[in-house]
């Protein structure tokens, strides 16, 4: 009996002095689920390859994106086709400029538009929606009606006006997309905040005397992040498409800079001459980026809220 008691005492001591156990956070769980989704992981790898291509690709280019190859001009159909010998790996465009360099440069701009647009949406939209939802009452009403009014203005119209008034520049395009990107996000976040703010852990924080701002930042935003990430990943292709559309109209980036939309637009114009590579290469990058983005978004949604599948 005495031996047993000593054993029990030792066991109790061991338990108290045991090493700290590292918990499994909900993030770790979600990451595990994401890694098991083959399509999503494939999307991530494809996207990474494209990013690496835009970073490393210029080192192999023999022509810059604005140089005109005078030997090719006028005979683009025969001499401008993709070839390794003359350094035009992807061929040339109608003016004899190297398509390889132009696709790399266009990819950079299009990805940047997507990323900056969704960053603004995430930061502004999350804070705006979380504050409106948490404070509630009249503040919420004013803030959300304001968003309603903004949303009722056709944003393509605003974007085009901005570009016409302030001149076509890539910075103006960023500003324009940033201005309109966060409306939907703020609505989604507000809705989520309303459901989170009545949970008991928020009450517990209020009872402990935590300030409102800290409650939003410490308790509400981390519980929103899942939905915000999923939605942001689905927004990126939307912005790329918007920018492509604007560039397709001829209002986006300015020559000699280019983007996917501008490249596809040029390629579409010369389609009748049989220079298929001019539309083929930009379109290929455009399509695989959008596909991998959607696969990643899908994978994130499945990983972050497994209940809603």
């Amino acid at each position: 009996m005495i031996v047993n008691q000593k054993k029990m005492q030792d066991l109790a001591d061991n338990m108290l002095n045991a090493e700290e156990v590292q918990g499994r956070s909900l993030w770790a769980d979600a990451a595990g689920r994401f890694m098991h989704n083959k399509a999503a992981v494939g999307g991530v790898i494809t996207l990474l390859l494209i990013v690496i291509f835009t970073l490393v690709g210029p080192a192999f280019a023999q022509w810059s994106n604005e140089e005109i190859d005078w030997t090719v001009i006028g005979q683009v159909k025969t001499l401008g086709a993709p070839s390794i010998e003359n350094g035009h790996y992807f061929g040339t465009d109608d003016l004899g400029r190297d398509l390889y360099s132009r696709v790399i440069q266009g990819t950079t701009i299009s990805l940047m538009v997507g990323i900056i647009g969704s960053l603004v949406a995430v930061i502004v939209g999350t804070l705006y929606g979380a504050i409106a939802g948490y404070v509630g009452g009249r503040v919420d009403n004013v803030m959300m009606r304001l968003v309603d009014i903004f949303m009722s203005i056709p944003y393509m119209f605003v974007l085009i006006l901005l570009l016409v008034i302030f001149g076509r520049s890539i910075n103006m395009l960023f500003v324009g997309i940033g201005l309109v990107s966060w409306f939907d996000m703020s609505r989604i976040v507000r809705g989520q905040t309303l459901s989170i703010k009545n949970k008991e852990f928020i009450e517990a924080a209020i009872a402990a005397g935590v300030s409102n701002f800290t409650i939003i930042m410490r308790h509400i935003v981390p519980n929103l992040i899942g939905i915000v990430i999923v939605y942001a990943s689905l927004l990126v292709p939307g912005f790329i498409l918007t920018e492509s559309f604007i560039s397709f109209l001829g209002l986006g980036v300015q020559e000699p800079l280019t983007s996917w939309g501008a490249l596809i637009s040029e390629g579409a114009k010369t389609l009748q001459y049989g220079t298929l590579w001019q539309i083929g290469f930009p379109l290929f990058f455009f399509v695989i980026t959008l596909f991998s983005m959607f696969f990643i978004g899908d994978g994130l949604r499945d990983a972050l809220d497994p209940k809603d599948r």
Partner: protein
Amino acid sequence: MSTQKEKLLAVEDLKVYFDIYPPNSMPWTKPQKLKAVDGVSFDLYAGETLGIVGESGCGKSTLARAVIKMVPAEAGKVMWMGTDLLSSTKKQMQKARSDLQMIFQDPLASLNPRMTIGDIISEPLRTHYPKMSASERKEKVKEMMIKVGLLPNQINRYPHEFSGGQCQRIGIARALILKPKMIICDEPVSALDVSIQAQIINLLMELQEEMGLSLIFIAHDLSIVQHISTRVMVLYLGNVCEITTSEQLYSHPRHPYTQALISAVPIPDPEIEKNKEVILIEGDLPSPMNPPSGCVFRTRCPKAQAKCAELKPQLEDAGNNHQVACFYAD
């Protein structure tokens, strides 16, 4: 006996009304008032447990939340050690909050799923002592975890890795870490199974003795309330029916509503249970938007007379620490 003790909390004529807008109303129409708590007064002494019982929707939780100002009160006073909390400044309130803590009904929902339990338990410390070093905080958290029966090496785990009973212990640790004087327990055991309920109740009673806590204990399980409470308050539709010591309440209930409640407590003995006389109350709970005139219980009361519809009975001392709000109390 409790009169000699220090009076911590004195609630006087507390009223909590909620504005209810009728459906499809215009923005300028006046809202209707839902009388969730309608003139409740009680005292709480150091070291005692006040049980609050009543059926669903009678204002138990609202009353508790109004006391710590989580729900705005319409009128009344909440005197906490001499200062009125309802009219106090933010700074005074913040100071009082470190002495007033709360334990919630749903153990898992009351813990933020994205935070480790170490962060959860230390949150009140971080709020009230922002200068305390991280290591000192961790030390205190571990100490408290041992006290409530959790293993301190699990400090980095997340709430979803614990059972309901353990989650409630985490909630208790969070409430106790500031060494408060009073804890409001809002149905802390109704989401747990019976064996765990007993553990949590006994833990609360042990901690109460050790730390000299006062508890306000809300429940609708009468036998648990009897076990833990020094005094019990019975609420009906936002009004107090009866306040007395728990022995008095269970042996000699005087308000007709209390008598019906007590008679409905099941007894774990089929023989007695079969022959027991249960006082049945007819009808449904009236709407708190439009409570009956006079005594709110008169519409369902077996003893109601004409007088009950005209006058509202006040809480009257019937001696022996027994206060009843009924004209025809036994």
